């Protein structure tokens, strides 16, 4: 849109607009990157031009490129320029670009503060809207602090359009600047009862979002929300309120009861599925209803049904378990999302009775699964399901081990370590299973080549780690120890990862030791020597390992074995001593035990025990970390079997020792560390074997067998046919593939094959029971945990910038702000320099220096304006431009230069009707001027207050001196008064909140109150200031007349033609008309002028006739009918106030007569 107006100017005819760019990119599919880099070069050129329309076009194109993934952060400054364009068309593009590419790290962002503030208070609601939208994307803590008050004011704007946006942005502000929550909350609460449903819903939204994070602070709002819930018919609002109650109910149980009725009503009455889902989600009334959702053919509803069910599961597991069939069915769904949800559900649904069946089903899925992610997910789920609550549901650990072994056949899984951890955990903690486990592990080691064959399976080779350790540690259970040892010594082993090899090396010694003992006891000396020889032959391959750990262990052990060989030659029995190296029992320790060791009284862990070591000494400690944690447990001494009492005594003694040893906490690597990822580590459980299950299954185990066996076992338990057990089993073993998953017994009937006694975790004495370390201190919402019921203290005010709102007293807050701003000065300056250099790199060094020096002196406040004046006003070009403007000013007297009118360069003579661009227009008029200073001003109606207008004055320092201590004062009339700080008299001036270095301009705003707006007003005033230069300081004054035209009380308000027609028909309006002759400009220009200078908008236009509309700040409607004849224009006006109308028409007449 903005682009069409570009067309008129010849030098810009070749610019690409956005559509051209898009088309170009589509036409250059082959060399897109090249084409785009060419476009970016063009854009860079365009950005260098002064014309804001060209810049906006360029920024628009950049925004598109940003989406394609190109970096446009270099144009941040140009984006700000476009944001500050006076025309909405451009402004909107600027804000869009900013919201797409600015983030907290964008340093130019702080330059936008004043621009945004200006837009927020713009009389045009869409300016305000676009600024709010932009803010929502890139608000930073600084912006939030500086603008919080402005946004809060906007929450009470007259237009719901602005109110609702402001309310929503407030949430972002709270997040970035939590201090604003308390001062702003009362107003936010008010908005819950806003007459506009949109604003109301926005407020509900924000409060719900706040309450979700910290529900307890919002309990007091429950009655209000309850009222809303029963009265509102807006589903969007209802959903939010119901969610809010979901968060509040746990804190106030009585709420639950109260909610049942309205929620039931909603569930029965609503037709909106989303609302229904929300209700069901909040109050779990009917699982049956969910079943309907899950059975639905719509995949989305199915998904949600499963999701809701998993929530119910947490509180009412029984009610969900009856739907197991349905959920298992969902596992077969072709949609992965649904399968994953179903898996979640299964986790909570397993029982002793159905565990095997469910896992079996999952194993089938593992085989079928295509994507590795889903398969990995299945794998973790299987392990989670089985190991949950300390293996609560496992009745047969042999089955579990077989499952784990089967899982090792998975290709390319990442979770080898999970399986390994489970194997270790089970083997260590379930004593009765060790024999079986060891046999399985030996088989794994034997088939290691399958597992470690290709690199893709790397993840799975972790299980070899577990296998090697289990075989070594429990080698006494090994039947074919020789064979296993040989498997471990295969050359292939050296291709395994270092940490696994290390475990191999360590455990082959354990194996060796037990074989040695065996052979010696049997008197087979030859065999014993043979095995020693084998070790000596094979170990060197590990000594050569590149892995330090492996190498070191291997060489130690090699030496040891060589020594043993010597002894063996002398026929000395060595086995007893070798085996003693690995004596000792392992006890699982609770994961948090180390943390919970209380600090003994009188021990100060921070105090130095010795003098602080020098830097070089501290390095000595490092080598310790080279050793893996695993090493610790191998070097433990095996103690002979001891009774429980003895064990307890020793544990006590150890604790005492640890407590008294100040080094214990620091230097001993926590032995329990490696258990941390295994769920629920307990003290060794006591397991009784049910001998009805044969312990050995030939060949690779098939977990299916166990399912079958388990069924049989249960069946038999039930029938109590103890004697014939074994026979029956043999008979049935042949029919493994037949299924019978019908279980009729109740849970209680099933006696587990292995009893697992649960003993509480081993914890140090006096351990603190609390688990406070679980909280995350970095939670961004924690900052918003603020008590809102406490009354506001005086000090709790949002920071207000003094010169913006003249009525506000100088508060300590704002002063702090100013100071803060000043302290930021160097950074901003730096930035500006950079920008400037980028922009006008070709400019002469001298000029640059001057500017820089000036900047050094400048007070940073109105960032953007300063920037702008700096970037343009120091050029000779600019001076020329100003002259041009002045000459135009004379011609058209009322059109004065806008401070930011880059577009003034488009002076146009040609006049084809369609392409005719508009002459430059600015609403800023000259206020007064002398050799030192020039003041231009603009008056805008204040939307928040029907009896206030804001006068924006731009002060431009024309001299080479420094201007300071500026003070503006006016002589109040009865009707119109300047708003002064409380307590000051009518004769006091208002200080201008900045100083002006030479050539710099800046803008300040002053608020005036008025009673009647039907007449134009003139106020006399004076600006006093101090001129400071090398010769010294002089006091100067400049008088002016501030002209409040009636048009300045009007606010551009769009109006639809039907509303307009109604207004005219109503007959409440007074009528008046004027006619102006000698009009030479086109009708378009004429309308544009009326729109611009008199704040009207076009309602309808037919040929050379147009209807226009505007509204005053006090709500007067003004309607115009403008007709153009040959050389004349007639304007018929209708207005609710006749004086206002005649004054307005007079002003218009004056404007038109100059055309």
């Amino acid at each position, binding site marked *: 849109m903005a682009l069409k107006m570009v067309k008129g100017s010849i030098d810009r005819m070749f610019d690409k607009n*956005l559509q051209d760019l898009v088309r170009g990119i589509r036409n250059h599919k082959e060399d897109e990157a090249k084409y785009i880099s060419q476009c970016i070069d063009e854009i860079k050129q365009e950005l260098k031009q002064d014309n804001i329309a060209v810049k906006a076009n360029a920024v628009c194109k950049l925004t598109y490129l940003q989406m394609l993934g190109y970096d446009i952060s270099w144009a941040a400054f140009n984006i700000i320029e476009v944001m500050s364009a006076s025309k*909405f068309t451009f402004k909107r593009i600027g804000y*869009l670009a900013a919201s797409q590419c600015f*983030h907290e790290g964008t340093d130019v962002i702080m330059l936008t503060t004043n621009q945004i503030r200006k837009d927020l208070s713009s009389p045009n609601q869409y300016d305000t*809207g676009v600024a709010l939208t932009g803010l929502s994307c890139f608000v930073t803590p600084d912006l939030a602090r500086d603008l919080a008050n402005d946004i809060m004011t906007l929450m009470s704007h007259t237009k719901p359009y602005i109110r609702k946006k402001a309310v929503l942005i407030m949430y972002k502000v709270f997040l970035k600047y939590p201090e604003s929550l308390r001062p702003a909350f009362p107003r936010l609460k008010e908005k819950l009862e806003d007459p506009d449903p*949109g604003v109301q819903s926005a407020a509900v939204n924000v409060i719900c979002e706040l309450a979700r994070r910290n529900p307890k602070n919002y309990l007091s709002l429950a009655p209000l929300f309850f009222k809303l819930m029963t009265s509102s018919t807006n589903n969007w609002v209802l959903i939010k309120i119901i969610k809010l109650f979901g968060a509040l109910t746990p804190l106030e149980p009585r709420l639950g009861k109260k909610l049942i009725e309205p929620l039931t009503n909603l569930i029965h009455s609503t037709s909106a599925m989303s609302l229904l889902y929300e209700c069901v989600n909040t109050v779990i009334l009917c699982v049956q209803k969910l079943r309907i959702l899950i059975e639905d053919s719509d995949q*989305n509803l199915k998904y949600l049904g499963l999701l809701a069910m998993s929530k119910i599961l947490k509180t009412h597991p029984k009610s969900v378990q009856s739907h197991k069939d349905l959920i298992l069915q969902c596992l077969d769904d072709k949609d992965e999302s*649904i399968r994953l949800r179903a898996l979640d559900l299964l986790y909570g649904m397993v029982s002793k009775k159905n565990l095997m069946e469910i896992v079996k089903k999952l194993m089938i899925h593992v085989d079928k699964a295509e994507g590795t992610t889903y398969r990995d997910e299945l794998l973790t789920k299987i392990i989670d399901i089985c190991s949950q609550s300390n293996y609560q549901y496992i009745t047969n650990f042999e089955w579990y081990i077989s499952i784990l072994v089967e899982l090792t056949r998975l290709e390319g899984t990442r979770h080898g370590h999970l399986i390994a951890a489970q194997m270790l955990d089970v083997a260590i903690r379930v004593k009765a299973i060790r024999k079986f486990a060891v046999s399985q592990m030996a088989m794994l080691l034997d088939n290691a080549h399958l597992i470690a064959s290709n690199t893709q399976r790397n993840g799975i080779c972790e299980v070899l780690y577990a296998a090697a350790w289990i075989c070594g540690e429990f080698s006494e259970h090994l039947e074919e120890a020789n064979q296993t040892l040989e498997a471990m010594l295969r050359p292939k082993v050296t291709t395994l990862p270092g940490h696994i090899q290390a475990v191999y090396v360590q455990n082959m010694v354990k194996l060796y030791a037990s074989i040695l003992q065996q052979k010696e006891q049997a008197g087979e000396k030859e065999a014993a020597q043979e095995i020693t020889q084998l070790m000596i032959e094979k170990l060197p391959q590990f000594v050569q390992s590149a892995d330090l750990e492996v190498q070191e262990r291997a060489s130690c052990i090699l030496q040891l074995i060589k020594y043993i060989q010597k002894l063996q030659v002398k026929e000395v029995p060595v086995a007893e001593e070798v085996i003693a190296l690995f004596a000792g029992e392992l006890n699982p320790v609770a994961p948090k035990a180390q943390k919970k060791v209380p600090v003994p009284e009188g021990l100060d862990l921070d105090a130095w025990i010795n003098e602080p070591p020098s830097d070089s000494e501290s390095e000595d400690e490092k080598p310790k970390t080279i050793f893996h944690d695993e090493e610790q447990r191998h070097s433990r001494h095996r103690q002979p079997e001891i009774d429980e009492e003895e064990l307890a005594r020793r544990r006590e003694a150890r604790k005492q020792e640890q407590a008294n040893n100040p080094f214990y906490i620091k230097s001993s690597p926590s032995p329990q560390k490696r258990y941390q990822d295994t769920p629920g580590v307990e003290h060794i459980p006591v397991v009784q074997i049910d001998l009805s299950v044969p312990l050995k299954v030939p060949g690779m185990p098939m977990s299916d067998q166990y399912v079958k066996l388990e069924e049989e076992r249960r069946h038999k338990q039930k029938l109590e046919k103890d004697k014939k057990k074994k026979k029956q089993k043999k008979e049935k073993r042949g029919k493994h593939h037949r299924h019978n998953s019908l279980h009729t017994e109740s849970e209680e009937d099933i006696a587990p094959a292995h009893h697992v006694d649960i003993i509480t975790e081993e914890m140090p004495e006096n351990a603190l029971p609390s688990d406070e370390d679980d909280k995350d201190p970095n939670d961004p919402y924690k900052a918003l945990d603020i008590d809102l019921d406490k009354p506001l203290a005086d000090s709790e005010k949002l920071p207000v910038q003094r010169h913006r709102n003249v009525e506000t007293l100088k508060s300590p807050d704002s002063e702090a702000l100013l100071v803060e701003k000043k302290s930021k000065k160097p950074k901003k300056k730096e930035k500006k320099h950079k920008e400037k250099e980028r922009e006008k790199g070709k400019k002469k060094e001298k000029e640059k220096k001057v500017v820089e020096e000036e900047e050094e002196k400048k007070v940073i406040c109105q960032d953007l304006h300063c920037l702008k004046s700096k970037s343009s006003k120091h050029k000779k070009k600019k001076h020329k431009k100003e002259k041009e403007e002045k000459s135009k000013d004379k011609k058209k007297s009322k059109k004065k230069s806008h401070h930011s009118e880059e577009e003034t360069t488009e002076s146009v003579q040609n006049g084809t009707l369609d392409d005719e661009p508009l002459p430059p227009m600015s609403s800023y008029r000259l206020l007064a001027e002398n050799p030192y200073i020039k003041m231009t001003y603009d008056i805008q109606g204040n939307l928040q207050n029907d009896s206030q207008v804001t006068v924006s004055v731009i002060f431009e320092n024309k001299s080479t001196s420094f201007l300071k201590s500026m003070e503006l004062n006016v002589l109040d009339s009865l009707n119109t008064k300047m708003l002064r700080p409380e307590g000051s008299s009518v004769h006091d001036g208002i200080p201008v909140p900045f100083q002006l270095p030479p050539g710099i301009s800046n803008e300040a705003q002053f608020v005036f109150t008025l009673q009647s707006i039907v007449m134009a007003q003139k106020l006399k005033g004076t600006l006093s200031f101090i001129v400071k230069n090398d010769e010294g300081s002089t006091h100067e004054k400049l008088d002016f007349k501030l002209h409040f035209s009636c048009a300045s009380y009007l606010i551009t308000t769009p109006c639809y033609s039907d509303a307009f027609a109604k207004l005219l028909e109503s007959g409440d309006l007074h009528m008046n008309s004027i006619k102006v002759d000698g009009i030479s400009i086109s009708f378009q220009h004429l309308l544009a002028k009326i*729109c611009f200078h008199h704040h009207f908008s076009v309602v309808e*236009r037919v040929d050379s006739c147009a209807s226009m509309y505007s509204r005053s700040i006090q709500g007067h409607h003004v309607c115009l009918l403008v007709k153009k004849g040959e050389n004349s224009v007639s304007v018929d006006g209708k207005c609710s106030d006749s004086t206002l109308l005649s004054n307005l028409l007079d002003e218009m007449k004056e404007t038109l007569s100059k055309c």
Partner: protein
Amino acid sequence: MWKIHFILLFSRQGKLRLQKWYTTLPDKEKKKIIREIVQIILSRNQKTSSFVDWKDLKLVYKRYASLYFCCAIEDQDNELLTLEVVHRYVELLDRYFGNVCELDIIFNFEKAYFILDEFIIGGEVQETSKRSAVKAIEDSDMLQETVEEYMNKPAF
């Protein structure tokens, strides 16, 4: 009570058509996420559900003609409502452009953003009425037209 983390529009070929982020992330991260998500969603069968778990968020997506609309929401958020949001946005686009197609969004991508901004602000729905959202856009379009563009428009 829900919050959209970001909205992506992309074509069946995986070309991004619109991205709106309601959480601030570095550009690199954004690009990575976009690539990942586009791939996940495009690889999904058409008959599957509209929800995908992704990291700690949920993706809710829907395909309209050749264009995928995808929202990332938080775990506790209501998926169906998000689908309605997506649908509402499509309706808004349709109302504004009239029989909206992918090309409308490509060539007038800034309008698509403006409409989105009128509908959702900071990840929250701000306007549930279709009429007022479109009206706001048209009014602000008209605003720029009254000043500048007006002359180039045919009488209405």
